[in-house]
Every structure is written in C-alpha cells, then in structure tokens.
C-alpha cells in the first residue's frame, strides 16, 4: 500500500529501559529526569485545559511537529496498525498557531460553545535523556464535555514526545499521539489532544 513500510513497529521507539540506563552519564538519576518530564507534561496539559493557548504555543519549538496518526485494525495488531500515512492531525507550527488564532475568533463554530477538556497524563516514562533532548512516553486520557450534553467523550492514547532544551527551557519538538481508537468517536477533532 502506498506509503506503508514493512516495519511492524512503525513508532520506531525503544521500550522503556531500566532505570539505571536512563540518562546514563548525565550526572542525573532517572528520578530526576522523570521529575523534569512529568513537570513539563503536567504544566503543558494545564495550559490546554485552562485555554492558555499562547502560553501553550510558547512551550513548542519553532519546528514542532504534532501528529495524531489514523489507526487501522489489522491482523498483525500492535503498532503495525499505524503503518499507514493517514493522520487525523499532522500539524506544523504554522498550523498550530492558526488553530489557536482560529479559536480566538468568534467564529470557530465547533468550539462555540467551547469544549471543556480535562487531560489526564500518566505513566510517564523517560526513554532517553541528556541535557539537550528527552524522549518521553506517557499515557493520555482526555475527557471532553460540551454545552449541556450529559454525555461526554473519552479519548485514550499513548503519547511519544521529544522535548528539546532551548535556551535552558524544555520545549516540545515532536509529539505523536497513538490513539486507542480506529474509528474516531468524535466527529472531528476541535480540541488539542
């Protein structure tokens, strides 16, 4: 199929290593790296849920790439289900900024009234770390409610993030959200996942 690679683990990320191997030689323990990563992710989630989108954008690098690939239920299962090149979201910085700018108009109808989001970011695992860059995996449960609808939506997935140190501050350089959904249970994605 067009654009499909044979590699069954399309994520290309290593499994979480032993604690002793995380940031080996950096002079910092795994616990310290974990604390750095967790602090970044919790703060970033807070910016989204509090709709501080300009602050949120400030936590991204200029060359950030933000992807939510489409999943296809396949016999081989696992990460191979992400072999395709289709995405629900595949944003560069221009696109993220435009989304934020759009939300700040009065005419982003899909977010009028606004969705109430609650990001639950857990199971933070630092995969690789040095002073310049961290690779972090985490689990995401996103609760979305809107208007007076008594029913909520729940989106679940695993995030693979690359954080880069820019002028001494961690910034998100790359994020891929591997959803646990093949068919998106919400009509369209109008919130930041």
């Amino acid at each position, binding site marked *: 199929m067009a654009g499909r690679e044979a590699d069954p683990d399309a994520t290309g990320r290593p499994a979480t290593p032993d604690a002793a191997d995380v940031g080996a030689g950096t002079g910092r323990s795994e616990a310290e790296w974990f604390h750095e990563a967790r602090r970044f992710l919790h703060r970033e989630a807070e910016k989204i849920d509090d709709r501080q989108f300009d602050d949120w954008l400030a936590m991204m690098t200029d060359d950030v790439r933000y992807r*939510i690939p489409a999943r296809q239920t396949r016999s081989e299962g696992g990460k191979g289900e992400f072999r395709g090149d289709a995405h629900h979201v595949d*944003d560069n910085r*221009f*696109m993220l900024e435009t989304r934020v700018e759009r939300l700040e*108009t009065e005419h982003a109808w899909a977010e009028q009234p606004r969705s109430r989001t609650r990001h639950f970011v857990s199971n933070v695992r630092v995969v690789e770390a040095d002073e310049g860059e961290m690779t972090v995996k985490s689990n995401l449960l996103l609760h979305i409610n809107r208007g007076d609808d008594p029913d909520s939506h729940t989106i679940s997935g695993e995030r693979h993030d690359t954080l880069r140190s820019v002028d001494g501050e961690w910034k998100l350089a790359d994020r891929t959200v591997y959803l646990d959904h093949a*068919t998106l249970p919400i009509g369209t994605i109008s919130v930041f996942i």
Partner: protein
Amino acid sequence: MSTQRSSVLDAWRAGMADGEVPQGIFNDEALFELEMDRIFSRTWQFVGFEDEIADPGDYVLRPIGNKEYIVTRDEDGDLRVLLNRCRHQGTPVCNVEAGNTSHFRCRYHGWTYDNEGELIGVPHRDTAYGDDLDAEEMELERVAKFDTYEGMIFANPDPDAEPLAEFLGEFTWYMDFFTGTTDEGLYVTGPTRSITHVNWKMPLLNVVGDTYHGPTTHRSGFETGLIGPDTEQFGDLSEHKLHIACGPGALELARRPYIAGHRDEVRDVIRRNVTDDQWTVMADQGWTPNNCGLFPNVVMVNLSMKVAEDEKVPITMVQTFVPRGPTETEVFSWVVNQKEAGKAHHEKAVQAATFTFGSGGTFLQDDIDIWSRLTESGRGVGGAGDDRQMKLTMKLDEDHDEENPDFPGPGRVYGVKFSEENGRYYLNMVLDELGDADPDAAGGADPDATGGADPDATGGADTDGTGTDDGDAGAGSATDAAEGDD
C-alpha cells in the same frame, strides 16, 4: 424491507417542487429504513481505491448499506467483493479492517474460504454432513456487481443494476478532474474514519453547490487568512461560479486554474490525460471543481490550501458519508494525488488536506458541528401540522438551463454566485430513488410533484436504476406499506 410509511416522505414529495423540505428527512426512522432498502441496497457505491489492495491477498472491510464486505485481491490479482458472512450460520469470517491473507476461516465452526470466496474447508465434513453439503452453493456471497473507474472501486448489491459506466454516464467528465489526470496512478492516503451525528444526506446537500454557507460557516477561515481573495481559494467572493448538474452528480466550479500549483512536468501529465475540452476548462478558462457530490454519498474536493504562511498546495480528497443510522454517519476520508507529482508533494498535500478537511480539519469541524445541530433540531418532525421545514427556495424560479456556449462540459451548466438549485437537484435524485415504486404509500401527496418540479433533475439523475428495480424490491415494499397503512 421497510413496512412503515413515512409521513416525512409524503411531506417531502409534496413540498419539493416549492423548495420546502421537512427537516425530518434528516432523522426520520421510517424514511431511513426506506433509504437503506431502496438506495443503499441497489445503488453503485464507492468502497475504496485499488491502491489500498495493491497486492494479491490484500483486503479491506467496507460497508455497503447495512452489510459489510471484504474487498480483496485474490491470488490471481483479480478484485473480489465478498459478503463478510460465513454461509453456515452467518458469523463474520473476517474480523479486522485490513490485512493480507489467502483465506478466511470462520472462528465458530471452522469453515474456510479462499479469497475468491470458495469454500475450501469444512472440519469433520464426512461426520457432520456426509454428502449433504454442496460446497459450491456455500461460497461466500459475492456482491452482485462491482467495477472500477480510474482506480476507484464501486460495488452494487443489485443484480439488475445498470453497468457502472452507464450509472456514471457523462459525470466521468468531471470525475476526471479528481482521479483521472495521471498515467502512473494515484498515491492514496487513508482512509481516516470518524463517527458524526449527522444524517448522510446533509454533507451531500452542502457539497453539491452550497456556496452560500462559505462566508458564514467558514468565516474563521477568512479571519485567519487560510482562505480569501488573496489565497484564490474560493475565488473572488463577488465572482460567479458554475453550478453544474450532470447525471448522478452535481458540483461547483470556482475561478481558479486547476493546473495552478502543479509543476510543469505534472501539467504535461495532466494534459496528456484529458480531452481538449477538459484542458480548455482547467487551463485556458481557469476553472477548478471545488466541491463535488456523487449520488448517493461520495464527496470529492479539489482545493488549494496552506501548509505554511506563504505556501499553498493543491489537494484532492475523496470522502464517503456512510449511513449508520438516521442521525449517525461514518466519514471515510482519503487524500489522493497523481504519482507523477512525487511523494514529497503528496505528503505535503496530505498534510494540507488533513489540516483543513480531514477528521481534525479546521474547516470540516465547523461544517460537521452545524450539520449535527441541524440534524438534532429536526428530531421528531413528521406529525400533522409540523411546519419545521427547510426553505430551499433560493433561485427556485430562475431559468437554470441558460446557454453556456463557451463552456464545453456536459450537463446543466448554471453560472451564478449563490444558488440552491444543485441542492434541489440532489434531493430530487434521492426522492426519485425512493419514489415511484409505491404509489400507495405516497398517500395524499401529489405523486407528480417531484417529476413535474424539475424535469432536468429527474431526467438526468435517474436514468435506468429505478425503472429496472420497480419489479422486485419496489413492488414488495409497496405491498407491505399498503398493508401497514390500511
């Protein structure tokens, strides 16, 4: 087969000629049953691209109406469209959306079929059946008809259906703008899938020609600079467009050269693959089919969208709006490109399409949100005296058959900025497919209203399909409906 009479359908028939359509056509359950019976069980439906199943053994599962089919390429490389249902007790034999296999084995009692659909294995056959099982009669049911056009696979469960080429008719002249401008075939990315709380007809009603919604629904697109005069996206807002109705489809052309944004080599490929007349339209006259709808539920778009502040890319998308219930529709969405445009160009186009009209797209999300509210607000329409109607009356009384000697394409070509004529054309197609088979069920409604309202629509929309089917499916439900009523 539906046995319920739909009062919404009666009101629809009665009001269509005046552009008055009960809002209940977007959520009436009895009408939905009729639609599944009379449209989705006997109309040509797009199920996917050949490129998705490029190699022998590749398969995808796709819905056609209420049923699920395995669309596969057998070991000889031939396409097969097989009902995903074991012939023993009906268990699905395929339980994932895509993959590659030479055979399908039912997990219940172990019956095994090859990917041509033949039953090749029955566990304990002698003990269980002796000679009482005719394997040939127990093949996976094949869809009655399937065919391809420019890499697009279509299927039709009706054995009496006209050939695909006849169904598409002259509309292929316009489909070529989306999938036909290539020698080497298409890059195909997708599908993405999402569930919307929208009736399946609503996206089509919009896409065939509702240029009127753009400035309001997509106002944020103008405000953020994604579209607007400077981007040539929808052309100059003051400029008129061409609203074209042609056979089973209708579309809107904007004043924006189709070939804009393509490299010279790709323009050469496009030129080789189109007729002189098509080239005149896309190059010399500078038109692009922005939005296009093919009956019953295919949407095609050609747009030019930004991937960066100063960079636009031409994008081509194909979407199907698959009915899952009166107020529930699943969207399948693909992005395609001429292979000659190159992988890098395709990837950029996919990104631009994803950002705008994909499942997380900044434009589609506003459409979907509004369509789902509209679907909801018509809930329960149908009681006597319920006047919740859509007024699709814009330019109802104009002459839509104006002469356009300069435009060489087929169909009814109507030059106007805003009009609801194509929407009426589409809804008339739906009515025609539902329509004439059950005069009893029509009750007090004027059965001539549809036909008389818009001779072009009825004539062009539905040539042979309904007529052929009257004898079987139609007559059956007419009887049932009559019994139910009386």
